[in-house]
């Protein structure tokens, strides 16, 4: 039990650090959002009127006061769930803007990641069990080759082949004319729009799991407890699953949580290639427009996402590996 309490304590401490960094980092960047906004409204070459800038700043509720005061306000608002108004989508609240994009990305990423993990681990384990077979060679060589490709490059390729040339799938957006919600036409459109982005991610992401799982599993197959399990006359299925794969899975579980964070990076480019209405595209826009509140909230969201994934992985690891529980409790 102490293992789990400790892990949770670490989680809270890291969360605080993240929240603070998230406050500081955007403020270190050069440039004034109000100025950019005025320029955007008045045209690039227009003369900047200080009064206009001040007015814009007041309207946006842009931060003023010392850094400490700002930090205090920031924490207070955070607790109340008030993330402010978006500069670029003014006058919408940040939460509303994110709310619209949130599920697009979360569903895309979770589904592809979970699928990649399962596919990768199963293929990797099977390749290791049938080591040096044709299956193993195909999987290992294929993975090594595909692993050199980048998801956004594959996205462009898919877009060209299946979107423009063959015209099987829509090339941009998330849906066409239907009303968002749980109705059949919308779900159908959403799935067909998500298919290519998902495929772009699915071609590359399992590779890490395949190679990782294969290598750990091969190492584990040399262990005494595998030889003993064979000597015990247990069916191959039991030896492979309960003895070999069960142990080889452990490093992958930690890896999975860590990978979730990196995956969002890949997703940003893929989303932009498909003009997919998700968080990745939103993040790109927020950076371009110096939309502090939106950017901060997005960063916070992703880091919290990674932290939660890590916590889950830690807890899961504790369940899966009895040695970890004792070593740290």
């Amino acid at each position, binding site marked *: 039990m102490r293992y789990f309490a400790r892990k949770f304590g670490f989680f809270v401490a890291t969360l605080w650090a993240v929240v603070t960094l998230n406050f500081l980092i955007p403020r270190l960047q050069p440039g004034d959002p109000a100025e950019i906004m005025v320029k955007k409204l008045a045209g690039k070459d227009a003369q900047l009127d200080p009064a206009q800038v001040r007015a814009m700043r007041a309207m946006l509720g842009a931060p003023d006061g010392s850094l400490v005061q700002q930090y205090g306000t920031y924490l207070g608002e955070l607790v109340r769930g008030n993330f402010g108004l978006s500069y670029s989508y003014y006058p919408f609240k940040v939460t509303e803007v994110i709310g619209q994009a949130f599920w697009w990305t979360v569903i895309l990423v979770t589904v592809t990641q979970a699928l990649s993990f399962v596919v990768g681990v199963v293929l990797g384990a099977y390749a290791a069990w049938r080591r040096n077979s044709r299956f193993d060679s195909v999987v290992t060589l294929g993975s090594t080759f595909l692993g050199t490709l980048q998801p956004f490059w594959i996205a462009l390729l898919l877009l060209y082949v299946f979107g423009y040339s063959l015209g099987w799938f829509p090339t941009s957006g998330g849906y066409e004319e239907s009303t968002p919600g749980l109705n059949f036409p919308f779900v159908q459109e959403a799935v067909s729009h998500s298919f290519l982005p998902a495929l772009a991610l699915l071609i590359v992401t399992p590779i890490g799991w395949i190679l990782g799982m294969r290598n750990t599993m091969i190492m584990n197959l040399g262990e005494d407890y595998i*030889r003993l399990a064979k000597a*015990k006359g247990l069916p191959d299925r039991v030896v492979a699953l309960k003895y070999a794969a069960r*142990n080889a899975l452990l490093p992958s579980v930690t890896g999975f949580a860590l990978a979730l964070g990196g995956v969002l990076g890949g997703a940003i480019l893929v989303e932009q290639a498909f003009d997919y209405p998700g968080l990745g595209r939103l993040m790109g826009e927020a950076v371009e427009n110096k939309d502090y509140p939106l950017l901060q909230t997005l960063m916070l969201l992703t880091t919290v996402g990674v932290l939660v994934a890590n916590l889950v992985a830690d807890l899961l690891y504790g369940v899966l590996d*009895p040695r970890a529980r004792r070593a740290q409790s």
Partner: protein
Amino acid sequence: MSLLDVSDLSVRYEPKSHRPLDAVQHVSFSIEAGEFVGLIGESGSGKTTLGTALLRLLQRPGRISAGSITFDGTDITHLHEDELRDLRWRDISTVFQSSMNALNPVTRVEAQFRDVIEQHSRLRGEAVTTRIRELFDMVIIDHRFISAYPHELSGGMRQRVNLALALALEPKFVLLDEPTTGLDVVVQHSILENVRRLQAEQGFAVLFISHDIGTVLDLSDRILVMYAGRIVEEQPAAALLRDPLHPYSKGLLGSYGDPRAETVRITYVPGRPPDLSLEIRGCSFAPRCPERIARCTEVDPPLLPMAAGRAACHVAQLQRDEGGAGEHGEPKRTFDGPQFVKTAEESTQALRGDVVLTVDHVSKVFTRRRGLTVQHTEAVTDASFVLRKGEVTALVGQSGSGKSTLARMITGVDSPTTGRIVFHGPNGDQEVAGFRGRSLRDYRSNVQMVFQDPYSSINPAKRLGYVLARPLANYHGLKGDALRDRVEELLETVALTPADRFVNRYGYELSGGQRQRVVIAKALAVEPDIIVADEPISSLDVSIRAEILELLGGLVQTKDVGILYITHDLLSARMLADEVIVLNNGRIVEQGQTLAVIRSPQDAYTRTLIEAIPNPF
């Protein structure tokens, strides 16, 4: 019909990048129901490969290339895995080499009994639990450990659990492959006692694979001696001890001394086993054999019935022929090889040497802080002794007795909590704990360490010349020709000759014994006053142990250094040490001249240690 019949069995390894290698060559033997057979040989002799082949667990690139294995009337040599599965564990089970890792680390012990019991018997649910309890009773382990995870058990307990697991289905045959190597002598002794008792009660047959002739002789009814992939001798244990046929068996017997004798003599077999991937002409042991005759280098001796068993030796055969003794000499019982001799007289002499280090009422308490709780562990309590020049002091105790902690304090890695360690060096008396920076560095050139595992103590990326030159350049500032001469001198001191042949080699190209010599040469490089040797021979084969002991023994006399020899094995302490210090739970329980302590131990713990030494004589 025997329970297990092995006939003309060969195992070949065919790796893609190397020459094929016949690890087991034309081996034939049989084991009767309920018989306890020992299989002895040094590492690389093929004994473990043979065992693995019997279990049909060989993995590529290894395969059975000839011969047959018949178990209980069924030919299992090429039996399909599905049919084999019914035989596994129900009839044939095993305990692996020091199986610290033979239990699945992520599942409870109970589950690992349950899966195999349910696989091969009709027992289910509560009946299985009852059986597991019985098995735990058999190996004398508390029932609460049934639901433990493997890492929660100590090494000895784990091995008992493995033994219980092997007996779960009342097999007819159990293969024990070095089941106690790596465990403390006392634990080893109690596990083997357990094996013997259970074997007598339940009547299963055993093939006991070991490199330790003492325990094999102690336990077995009959013994197979394996060398270079072949069986070179087979005899009942008593006959082997009384009248060994093959010179290699004599060599193995010679590596075992009686610790109670006034003068201990142990012989060793010089040289190394042959490379099995090369063609061998004549007898494979001939190059190392003191009894070699012309025929040995030309004709491969067959394994023939002789005396009470079988042997593959021309000389033994000729001597035992009608009238052969007259022409070829009487059979010898001993191995005419190099000897290592330790006399009680030497020890008495050594105890008069100059004191070089004093350990004065030293205690060490480790403090572990975890959150708000602080845990104190007393690793060493009030230890006092001295180290002398020209003397070997043995520190004997089980793992966890505090011997390594003492070594760390003597080398200046840790400092004592209370008490003092004083070094009587060229600059007068200095306290070890007071050394910092430069003075600590100077002190380290006076105290050198030799570790247990020669395989990981030499940088594999550097040539030996470089390995040995480092300490010389660091501490003595030697350069160029002077440096090279000194390196070669060192190699010669540890009998790696001719030195120029070793300078440009890498550590991994050498045998275990040669590597340990390099490690010792490295320690000698800076001309230390004290060498702390932590189990320097325990990972080496019996036949080369004596070699290293002799080297260390010789150094003490010629180089005038003091050696602190750390070991869990009282027998090797007797061979090397003049004085012995017995450590139990951080306390010195007994201390004195080695022979005196072994002959009349005062402390109960010392007596336990002495009883644990296998004594076939």
